[in-house]
C-alpha cells in the first residue's frame, strides 16, 4: 500500500516538474522563436578617405610592448578589404519583439595594453566581467553619461571586475594609467545585435519575422538606420558610412 502511494506521488511530482520546465524554460521559448525566425546579415562599407591608422608607441610599458610582434595601431576607424569597416555595431533599434534575457556574461579583456575586443556589445543588466591579463596595473574608466560613471584600479593578478549597466548607452572606455588605451561598450536594449568582423560582415541571428528599424553604429560617424523586413531565412541589409581623413 505504502509503495503504491509513493509511486503515484513520484509520478505526479515528476510530471509537474516536466510541465513547468516545458513552459518556463528559456531554452524552450528560444527554440520556438528560432524555428519561426530569420537572420539579418550584410556588409559595412565606407565612402570617402578614412583617417590613417596611427601606430601606438608602448615603449614605456615593456611588458605590453613585447606582446605585439607588429606595432599596434589605432582602431577608431578600422578598415578591411574592399572599403569595409570593422567594429560596427548593428542592432534592432525599434520594433524589437521579445528580446531574450542574456544567458551568459560578457567578457572584456585588457591585454597587451589594449582593450579586447575594441568594441564590446552587450545587453542592459547583462553581467560584465573585466579581466586584466597584463603584468601591469590598469585603471579602467568607462565614461558613462546615462549610466553611473566609475573607474576601477586593477593590479596584475587580481580577480575580474564585475559590472552591469541598467540603461542603453554607447560608452567610451579609457584607461587612467595608459592614455593610448581606448575602447567602447555598446550597452543595448535588445538581444538582436552583431558587430562587423574584419571583413565588414555582420550577422544577427534569431530574428522573428517582422519589420524593424535596424541601426548601424560606428564610433566616429553618425549612426545609420534603415527599415528591414524579415520574412524568414536570410535578409540582406548593407550599411555605408561616410568617413573623413581628420
Amino acid at each position, binding site marked *: 500500500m505504502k509503495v503504491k502511494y509513493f509511486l503515484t506521488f513520484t509520478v505526479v511530482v515528476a510530471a509537474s516538474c516536466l510541465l513547468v520546465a516545458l513552459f518556463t524554460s528559456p531554452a524552450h521559448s528560444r527554440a520556438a522563436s528560432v524555428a519561426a525566425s530569420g537572420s539579418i546579415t550584410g556588409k559595412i562599407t565606407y565612402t570617402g578617405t578614412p*583617417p590613417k591608422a*596611427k601606430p*601606438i*608607441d*608602448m*615603449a*614605456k*610599458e615593456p611588458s605590453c610592448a613585447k606582446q605585439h610582434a607588429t606595432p599596434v595601431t*589605432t582602431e*577608431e576607424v578600422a578598415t578591411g578589404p574592399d572599403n569595409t569597416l570593422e567594429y560596427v555595431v548593428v542592432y534592432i533599434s525599434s520594433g524589437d519583439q521579445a528580446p531574450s534575457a542574456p544567458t551568459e556574461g560578457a567578457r572584456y579583456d585588457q591585454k597587451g595594453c589594449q582593450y579586447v575586443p575594441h568594441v564590446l556589445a552587450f545587453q542592459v543588466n547583462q553581467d560584465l566581467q573585466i579581466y586584466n591579463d597584463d603584468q*601591469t*596595473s590598469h*585603471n579602467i574608466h568607462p565614461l558613462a553619461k546615462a549610466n553611473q560613471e566609475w573607474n576601477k*584600479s586593477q593590479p596584475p593578478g587580481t580577480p575580474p571586475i564585475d559590472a552591469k549597466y541598467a540603461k542603453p548607452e554607447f560608452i*567610451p572606455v*579609457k584607461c*587612467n*594609467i*595608459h*592614455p*593610448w*588605451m*581606448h575602447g567602447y561598450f555598446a550597452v543595448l536594449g535588445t538581444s538582436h545585435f552583431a558587430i562587423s568582423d574584419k571583413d565588414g560582415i555582420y550577422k544577427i541571428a534569431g530574428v522573428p519575422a517582422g519589420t524593424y528599424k535596424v541601426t548601424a553604429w560606428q*564610433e*566616429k560617424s553618425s549612426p545609420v538606420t534603415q527599415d528591414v523586413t524579415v520574412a524568414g531565412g536570410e535578409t540582406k541589409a548593407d550599411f555605408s558610412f561616410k568617413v*573623413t581623413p*581628420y
Partner: protein
Amino acid sequence: MSGKVFAVVLILVVLTSTFFFAAHTWWLPVDISTHGPALDKQFNETLIGTGIGFLVSQFALAFFVWKYSGPRTGQKLKTLPGGAKGLVIFAIALVGVEIIMLESVGQKVWADLYFKPADPNSLVIQVQAEQFAFYFRYPGPDGKFGAMHPDKIDEGSQNYFGLDPANDVAARDDIVAASMYIPVNRPIELLMHAKDLNHSFYVRELRIQQDFVAGLDEQIHFTATQTGKFEIVCTQLCGLGHYNMKAYLNVVTQDEFDQWLKSQSQ
C-alpha cells in the same frame, strides 16, 4: 669609559661614511650635457666643502667627548659669559654666509640654464606631461606647431595635443611621439606644458630636472653630447600611475634623427 667608547664609535662611523663618498662608491651617473660639467663641478666643490666641515665638527665632537666625559669632582661647571646668545647669533650668521656663498658661486650655472635664451638654431620640441605619460611634438617640415584645442584632445586617435588638422594646415605635418628623439650636439629648446596637473621632467644624465606647473608654459634648453638611450621620469607625485610615468630619450646622430623623423611623418 662610556664616553671614550662613544668617541671611538663616532670616529669609525665618520671615517666609514666619508670613505664611500671619497671612493665614489655610489656616484653620479654619466653626464651627457654641455651644462653638466659646470653643475657637477659645483656639486663636487660643495660636497668637498661640506665634507671638510663635517669631518672637522665630528672630530671636535669626538675630542671633547673623549677628554671631558669622565667624572669630575670639585670643579664648577663653566658657562659662556652672558649666556649662549652670542654663540647662537654667530652660528646663524655663519650659516647665512655659507648659503650666500653657495648661491653666488652657483648663480652662473643657474643663469646659463634659466636666464640665457636658447640658441636661435635650436631644435624646438614640445613636451606634454599627463597622467601618466609624456608626449613629444615636433613641428614637421613647415617648422610651425599647429594650435592646440583642449576640446579636440582625443586619446583614441592619438590626438594628445588637441590638434585640428581638418582646419589648421600647420597642424597637419606635426609629429607626435611617445618617445623623444634628439640629434647629438644640437641645441634643443624644450617647450613644456602639463595637460592635467604638476609633473616633472627628469633625465639624470642630462642633469635636467624641471617641474611642469599646470597652467604655465615653460622653456628649458640643453645640448646632449653623447648618443644613447636614457630614461625620462616624472619626479613629482602625480597620482596612481606616477611610479610608471616615464618615456625614453634617444640621443642619435643627425642622420638617424632625420630617418626617424621621416618614418614618423608617414
